[in-house]
């Protein structure tokens, strides 16, 4: 049971990749990529968790309490916000590709080779 977070993370990674591979619409590809991304959050937060520990905010609990690891939380916290803008960049590329090739199906982007 204590391995479950990692199993879920691996599941999300593979399912998200399946979405990327099978997609026939570039918007779906980008959205599936966000699922792949979320698996990393799960691994990081799963690693840093301590049973029975409290959140690392010592405003109203003594600083000597048992607290979860704050380092992994910082990594995930900034990444969540950055990810949204990187997704926006990817979608801007999709809009441009659609403008050029008239399609959002990755299979139709072959004209790139010309």
């Amino acid at each position, binding site marked *: 049971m*204590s*391995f*479950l*977070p*990692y*199993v879920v*993370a*691996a*599941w999300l*990674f*593979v399912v998200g*990749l*399946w979405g990327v*591979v*099978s997609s*026939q619409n570039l918007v779906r590809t980008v959205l599936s990529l966000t699922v792949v991304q979320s698996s990393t959050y799960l*691994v990081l937060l*799963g*690693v*840093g*968790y*301590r*049973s*029975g520990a409290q*959140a*690392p*905010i*010592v*405003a109203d609990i003594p*600083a*000597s309490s048992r*607290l*979860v*690891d*704050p*380092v*992994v*939380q*910082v990594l995930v*916290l*900034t*990444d*969540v*916000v*950055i990810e*949204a*803008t*990187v997704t*926006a*960049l990817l*979608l*801007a*590329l999709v*809009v*441009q590709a659609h*403008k050029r090739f008239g399609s959002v199906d990755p*299979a139709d982007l072959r004209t790139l080779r010309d």
Partner: protein
Amino acid sequence: MSRRFRLGLFALAGPGLAVVLLLGMHGLPAFGHFRGLYGVLANRLEPPLRHATDIVTALNFDLRAFDTLGEEFILFGSVSGVALLLRQLRDEHKDERNRDVADHRFADASDALRVTSLILIPLAFALGAYVVVHGQLTPGGGFQGGVVLAAGPIAILLAGRYFALKALAPAWALEALDSIGAGAYALIGLGGLIFASVYLQNFLPLGTPGKLLSAGTMPLNSLAVGIEVTGAFLLTWTEFLDQALIVERGAR
């Protein structure tokens, strides 16, 4: 490579990848039994050293401050990329003939929606500002509060007044917000270099833990990040919405 072949390949490779991932993660500490010392030390040291009560924010703007600078520039870079990619398209469509029609395109919002969004604007602003300035005390900080702050002006759009939004927040102002936020963070770092001889080191009095003005430069860092994230999200949204409107104009 045909789609069928690709899917067949993944049907083989996917489970293989899952097995490799699980084998790799088998070596990680069991859930709930992490023994890493770094986090424990941070939990013990940050409150007395920086007088901050939210250790996550404290790490973000103290031990990991240089990393946060990097994250800030990823944000800045991707928003610049969005603006660059979409503006090239806008010039291609510089057709102002149907501007009057387009002006009223978003105006068919119902009265109920308008009133609700008017209430939402000050609420989003108050909540966003609260989250930004209380970063070192309670969960929050510039990254989260910035998105909430950016949601306020977007409520004007929900009220059906897209051009009021453009007048209130023109592209140059949003670009300025984005750049000022990113620049201010780097400048606060320079302050550390000058007054404490280490880049991004704290150089202000630490104050009483739990007070609004405490933890030295941390509220300033949080504010800089908040300003940048607000500008970044508003700029991204309005760039994409400009796109939607321009094509609306072309289609009519």
